[in-house]
């Protein structure tokens, strides 16, 4: 387990960063990177079973609305609301998953896209619960072990913790037999089933874990922004998450982290070139898709000499 130490050291360095090194605004970006790493990792799970879900924006939204509403209306403590919201999303994934996961390929993408849009439109239409297009302002700040986390550094640590948890979770999943099963599901489902694997259950399990992470990412995002509005959870969220994985490299969970590290700050860094922001974003993605199908991680491993185990050629 030598490499675990490598991660613990990096984590410690990152945790200390905002207090000494990072200027406040970069701490803000740090929080966003933490949240989007969690979300990118949740999409990495779906990419691994070859079923891109476009409902992940809505799952993120349900996490945000759930956690906020449970704190604001049922005044549950943050930890309870946060976890209950994420579990709620996972439960929803369980319910719809058994129906949806039978569908494969592009049809699954279109199905989850339609399902996600219905949820977002419900946020807009069901004004009494979700507050309509304006959403829910005044989302209370999280509080852990009794003291409220209001400061940006506090959020930074929370977000870093969430990202670390997500990375550890996905990493262990891929590390253990479960990883081998999930990967085989997409590589050759018929062979995997013929060896005795109940592929439906494993797909459902992956979908629920992925939805759980998306719910948590959404919940923290809502508390951080102190505002939950439907427009933040639409169709572009899963698109961005897929791009982060494509650019970072789908083969390994670290790819999702690299993708988040690169893409989250992009709009902020290009802030001054307002219109050119999206242009560069689009062109960067096109170039990556054409010339580096395995993303940056693929590039790094090529540079390190050993061929990336998996081409994106599946």
């Amino acid at each position, binding site marked *: 387990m030598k490499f675990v130490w490598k991660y613990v050291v990096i984590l410690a360095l990152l945790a200390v960063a905002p207090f000494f090194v990072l200027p406040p605004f970069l701490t803000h970006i740090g929080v966003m990177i933490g949240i989007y790493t969690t979300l990118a990792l949740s999409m990495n799970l779906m990419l691994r079973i070859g079923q891109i879900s476009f409902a992940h924006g809505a799952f993120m939204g349900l996490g945000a609305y759930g956690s906020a509403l449970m704190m604001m209306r049922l005044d549950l403590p943050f930890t309870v609301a946060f976890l209950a919201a994420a579990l709620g999303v996972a439960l929803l994934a369980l319910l719809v998953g058994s129906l949806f996961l039978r569908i494969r390929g*592009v049809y699954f993408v279109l*199905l989850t896209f339609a399902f996600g849009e219905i949820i977002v*439109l419900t946020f807009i*239409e069901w004004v009494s619960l979700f507050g309509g297009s304006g959403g829910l302002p005044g989302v209370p700040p999280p509080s852990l072990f009794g003291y409220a986390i209001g400061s940006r550094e506090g959020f930074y640590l929370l977000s870093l913790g969430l990202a670390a948890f997500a990375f550890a979770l996905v990493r262990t999943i891929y590390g253990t037999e479960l990883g081998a099963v999930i990967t085989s599901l997409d590589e050759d489902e018929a062979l995997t089933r013929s060896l005795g694997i109940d592929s439906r259950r494993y797909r459902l399990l992956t979908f629920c874990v992925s939805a759980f992470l998306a719910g948590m990412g959404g919940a923290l995002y809502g508390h951080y922004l102190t505002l939950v509005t439907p427009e933040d959870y639409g169709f572009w969220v899963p*698109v961005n998450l897929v791009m982060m994985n494509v650019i970072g490299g789908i083969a390994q969970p670290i790819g999702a982290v690299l993708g988040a590290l690169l893409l989250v700050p992009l709009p902020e860094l290009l802030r001054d070139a307002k219109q050119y922001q999206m*242009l560069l974003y689009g062109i960067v993605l096109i170039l990556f898709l054409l010339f580096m199908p395995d993303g940056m991680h693929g590039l790094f491993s090529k540079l390190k000499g050993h061929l990336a185990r998996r081409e994106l050629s599946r």
Partner: protein
Amino acid sequence: MEFALQIVVNGLMSSLVYILMALGFTLIFGIMRVVNFAHGEMYMIAAFLVYALVGSLGWNYYLVVVLSALALGVFGAILERALFRPFVGRELQGMIMALAVSITLQAVAFILFGPNDLSVPRPITGVFDVGPMVIPRDRVAVGASALVVLLAFYVFMRYTKTGLAMRAVVQDEDIASIYGVRPKIIHPLAFGIGAMLAGFAGALMAPIYTIHPYMGAQPMLKAFIVVILGGLGSVPGAVLGGIILGLLESLFATLVNTTVATMVCFGIVVLILLFKPTGLLAR
């Protein structure tokens, strides 16, 4: 329900435009297996061409409609050749590329034309009063031209050699290529024709509503619903899907509101994908 007739008429008029968009979308998917999320941007580019050529340079509107459609046809072929060729058959990568193209085209339009809603002087104004119903003349003109384009497309697909080749590729590319159909030709052609159809829709609708860089999103969404209703890759399906969506949307938008109308349409899409993924007119 005294305006039942008005609802039907409103619905049919929007159906024709939806069908035009859906045909392009389903052709590209049928042949290239690519869900073309950049389809809405073809519509948008054509609208901006109308704005630039008719609005600023004052060319004849009808000439510009044809010109912009052809321009989009060429642009579509070039797009396929340059960006989509490596992804033929690989649906997910193709889709992601389409998303990237969509972002880029929106950004370019934004830089060139800015964010605000622009308008184009309307070639046709006024209304037909038919009994209790009111039918805007320009919408009828758009409907008629869309019908003409649809018929031309149908004839092309049914009676020309290339049309036959395309339909063969939709069924099975490998077998088609055995019979001498060259995918290297058919793919850019399909993408081009798909983009041209969207271009037609965009140019025809440009004066009706306002023109802005993000105008492509809604029509693409509608084409997407229509194609799924009818069945991905199925041409008659796109026509049936277009009519269903147009009528349904008009009904709910009138009686309730547009949000609920869209929700109902998406609800049907979910049901169809779950229980009949190949759509109503399964191939």
